[in-house]
C-alpha cells in the first residue's frame, strides 16, 4: 500500500495546469515542424513558422501559448494499492484553482444557465479509472472551446458501417472550417455507448500526436481519414495548403448489435496536454 497525500495531488495538478498552458510538448512541436517542412502553401508555411515562434515566446516569456487556457479535462488512473489521504476530487479541483490563479491563466468556466463565470476555472471534468498497482497517473488536457465547439457525436445505424462513420468524421472536420484553428488533431471514438464514444474520442487526444492505433485495421482507418481530410485543402487556419489535420487518433470499443456510435473530438494546433505519475 502506498499513501498519497492530498497536498501532493494539489501541487501536481497546479504545476500541470501552469506548464500545460505555457510549454507545448515535444510531440505537438515536432508535428508542427513536420507540417511546416511539407507545406505547399507559402502563406501556410509562414503561419506554421509563426506558431512555432509563438510556442517559443510562450515558454520564454511565461505567458500562455493561447489566451483560451480552456476548460480542464483530467484523466486519473489510480492504482488499487494507492491509499488516498483525503478527497481526491477536491484535491484535483484545488490544484486547478491554484494553477489558474498563480499561472495568470484565463478563467473561462461559467454556469451554463446564468453564464456567470465561476471565477476559478473549476470545476474541471474528471474521469477516474482503477488499475492494478500503486501508481497514480494524472493526465491533464485543458481545451479551448473554439475546437471543442466543433466536435460532434452521432449514433449511426450499423448499416452505415465504417464507410458511413468515416464520412461523418470527415464531414464534421470539414464543416468546422477555420473555426477550430487547424492544423487539427482529430480524436475519434467508434463503438461503445453514447458517452463511451465521446470519452474515447477525448482520451485518444492523450496519445503522442500521430502515434497509430495498436490495431492494424484501425491504424489504416486513421491514415485514410488523415489523407481524406487533408485532400480538401482547407489548410492551416483555413487559409489553404495541405495541413488541415496533423493526425487522426481512433479508439474503438465493442458496441451493441443495434448501434454504431461515432464521436469526433476536434483539437486545435495549440494542443496542450501534460501527464504526471505520482
Amino acid at each position, binding site marked *: 500500500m502506498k499513501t498519497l497525500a492530498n497536498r501532493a495531488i494539489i501541487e501536481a495538478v497546479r504545476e500541470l495546469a501552469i506548464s500545460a498552458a505555457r510549454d507545448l510538448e515535444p510531440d505537438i512541436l515536432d508535428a508542427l515542424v513536420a507540417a511546416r517542412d511539407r507545406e505547399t502553401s507559402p502563406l501556410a508555411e509562414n503561419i506554421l513558422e509563426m506558431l512555432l515562434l509563438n510556442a517559443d515566446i510562450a515558454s520564454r*516569456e511565461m505567458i500562455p501559448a493561447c489566451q483560451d487556457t480552456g476548460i480542464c479535462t483530467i484523466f486519473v488512473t489510480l492504482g488499487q494499492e494507492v491509499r488516498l489521504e483525503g478527497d481526491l476530487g477536491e484535491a484535483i479541483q484545488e490544484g486547478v484553482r491554484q494553477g489558474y490563479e498563480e499561472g495568470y491563466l484565463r478563467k473561462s468556466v461559467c454556469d451554463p444557465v446564468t453564464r456567470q463565470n465561476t471565477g476559478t476555472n473549476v470545476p474541471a471534468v474528471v474521469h477516474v479509472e482503477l488499475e492494478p498497482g500503486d501508481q497514480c497517473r494524472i493526465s491533464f488536457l485543458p481545451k479551448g472551446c473554439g475546437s471543442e465547439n466543433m466536435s460532434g457525436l452521432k449514433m449511426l445505424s450499423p448499416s452505415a458501417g465504417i464507410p458511413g462513420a468515416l464520412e461523418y468524421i470527415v464531414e464534421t472536420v470539414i464543416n468546422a472550417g477555420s473555426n477550430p484553428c487547424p492544423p487539427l488533431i482529430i480524436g475519434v471514438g467508434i463503438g461503445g455507448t453514447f458517452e463511451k464514444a465521446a470519452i474515447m474520442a477525448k482520451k485518444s487526444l492523450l496519445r503522442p500526436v500521430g502515434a497509430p492505433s495498436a490495431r492494424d485495421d484501425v491504424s489504416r482507418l486513421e491514415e485514410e481519414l488523415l489523407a481524406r481530410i487533408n485532400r*480538401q485543402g482547407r489548410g492551416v487556419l483555413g487559409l489553404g*495548403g495541405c495541413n488541415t489535420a496533423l493526425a487522426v487518433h481512433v479508439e474503438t470499443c465493442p458496441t451493441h448489435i443495434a448501434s454504431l456510435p461515432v464521436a469526433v473530438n476536434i483539437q486545435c494546433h495549440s494542443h496542450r496536454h501534460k501527464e504526471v505519475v505520482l
Partner: protein
Amino acid sequence: MSLLRTATSFSGDCKKIDLPFGDGVVEELRAGDLVQLSGTMYTGRDQTHRRLCALLDEGCDLPVDLAGQLLYYVGPSPARPGRIIGAAGPTTSYRMDVYTPRLLELGLKATLGKGSRSMPVRQSMQEHGAVYLAAFGGAGAFLSQCVKEVRIVAFEDAGPEAMFCFEVQDFPAVMINDVFGGDFYEEIVARNDVAR
C-alpha cells in the same frame, strides 16, 4: 511574403493600415490581403456583445462611439506583474454573428476574429461598407507583443470578457470579407491547391 520571424517583420508585401480607419481605406482592401494594423482598436466577445445590444435595446448610449472603429474578438489572459497583457489571440467570430449587424449600423467599420461569418453578417457588411479580418488563431503569445497599451472601457465585472481598448502596432491579419462581397475562405475552398 517574407517570413513572420517577429511580430514586427510580418511581411514585405502587406498593407499597413492605421486605426481608426480614415475615409476610403476599407474600400481599398481586398479578400486575401495581408495587413498590419496600427493604432486604436476596441475589443469584445460574447458578454460584451450581449451587453452592448442590451444597452441599444434600452435606448442607451454605448460606452464608446464605434463609428469608423475596428472591433477585435478577444478575451485576453490576465497580465503577469510587470506586463500589460497576457496572451491575446482571436476567438471564433460566428458567436458574434447575431449581434454584428446592429453594430455595423452604428458605423463600425471592421471586425477581427477567426472563422467564417454568417450570410446576414456578410450582407450587412456590404450594405454598410465594412470588412472582416482574421487574426492568427492560437498565436496569442505572439500577438500580445503587438499590443502596446491596454485600458478597460466597459463591463469590467465580465473579467476576460470585458471591453478593452488596445493600442496596437503592426498587428498582423488577413482580409477575409471585403466590401465587394469577396470571401477569402471561400476562395481557398474553391481553388483547393492540394487537389490540383
